[in-house]
């Protein structure tokens, strides 16, 4: 298990803002990245949006895509859209994006279940969730890998092993399971919950829905996390069993495993 980093956050809010501004235009040093690792995703993104807005304001014209690159992208788009639902697919159950409020392609993309495969320029082929997980661990400096534990006083789900790899700065993570029983999606599905301490006291505020997923076969399975709401500070990840499609609020009658993020 990777030891989580415990950087000392900047005590001066101004220092935090300055570092976030630096990050939005320039790669930070490892020391600076460690200083802002505790910044929330919302804080980080607000500065990135400011930089993006400045770019759009400053640039008059964009160069057209080269024809060869356009063809490559169209092929990737077709592959992405046509990718079959993999054995494990995360989809937010009852909460649907407000498609009426979106425009253009994002409405279509948000309505399509996210495929677990991605294109990798280096590998020249479709990369697996396990490869994506490893890439995150290799590239992000604030990844915590937390093993699953039995949940409260519920009987332990026999023999389930694995962990959660989570990067707060990227809002990206992966679940990994060994020996989690396959489910019949027509009868029940697994659902991920992310406890976010920035939303209030964990026991009083509903956790963030991390989506439903299926396990098609025993053995080691890796599942990408796709939280549908920004996660400010994840303090725990939990898995329950729910009806097909999942639920908005779990009654926690069928707990599976939990992973508590170390302080």
């Amino acid at each position, binding site marked *: 298990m990777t030891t989580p980093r415990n950087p000392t956050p900047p005590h001066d809010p101004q220092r935090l803002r300055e570092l976030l501004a630096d990050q939005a235009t320039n790669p930070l040093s490892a020391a600076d990245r460690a200083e802002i690792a505790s910044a929330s995703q919302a804080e980080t993104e607000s500065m990135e949006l400011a930089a993006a*807005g400045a770019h759009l*304001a400053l640039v008059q014209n964009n160069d057209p895509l080269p024809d060869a690159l356009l063809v490559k992208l169209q092929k990737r788009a077709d592959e992405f859209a046509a990718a079959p639902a993999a054995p494990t697919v995360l989809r937010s159950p009852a909460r649907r994006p407000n498609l009426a409020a979106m425009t253009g392609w994002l409405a279509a993309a948000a309505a399509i279940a996210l495929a677990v495969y991605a294109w990798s320029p280096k590998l020249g082929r479709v990369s697996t969730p396990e490869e994506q997980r490893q890439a995150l661990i290799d590239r992000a400096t604030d990844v915590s890998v937390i093993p699953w534990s039995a949940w409260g006083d519920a009987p332990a789900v026999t023999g389930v092993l694995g962990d959660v790899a989570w990067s707060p700065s990227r809002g990206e993570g992966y679940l990994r399971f060994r020996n989690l029983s396959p489910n019949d999606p027509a009868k029940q599905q697994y659902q991920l919950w992310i406890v976010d301490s920035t939303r209030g006291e964990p026991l009083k505020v509903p956790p963030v829905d991390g989506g439903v997923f299926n396990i098609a076969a025993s053995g080691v399975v890796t599942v990408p996390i796709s939280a549908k709401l920004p996660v400010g500070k994840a303090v725990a990840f939990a898995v329950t069993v729910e009806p097909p499609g999942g639920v908005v609020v779990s009654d926690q009658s069928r707990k599976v495993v939990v992973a508590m993020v170390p302080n």
Partner: protein
Amino acid sequence: MRACIDQYGALVWSLARRFLRSGADAEDAVQEIFIDLWRSAGRFDPAVSSEVTFVAMIARRRLIDRVRAGANRAGDLDPSVLESNTPAAPTADRLDLGDEASVAAAALERLDPQQQRTMRLAIVHGLSHEQVAKVTGLPLGTVKTNIRRGLIRIREMLSARTQAGVSP
């Protein structure tokens, strides 16, 4: 998906070419960025930003990651080349630029010419802070201060708009 490419391909490609020295790197980056966009689509919140600004944010983030991972940064340090095709003043007259651009333009217009130039070199041309210092002849600390103040100001103005209930 194809509509996404049609709508934002030029924007993403131009960003990549400005950040990365190698055309091959830029092509790889563009493809990575679109994959990232399609995977991130569910995270887009129209209450937080406009679609075009969200796209630009994802693209810039991926490009800065690539530079940090060792990709050669573009950076023709000839000021006449760098600044020959950028406007003298920020503008947000086009309706397709999103509200963030208009807010940013308003903030940028209040900067002095030196500060505007610093912002343009770092944000549009993707120069590192050290490269900006070299091009402008300004101390590195001044460059950092100019960029920080400009972005923090833009963020404050965007935040004020959100709190006032003005959606992107």
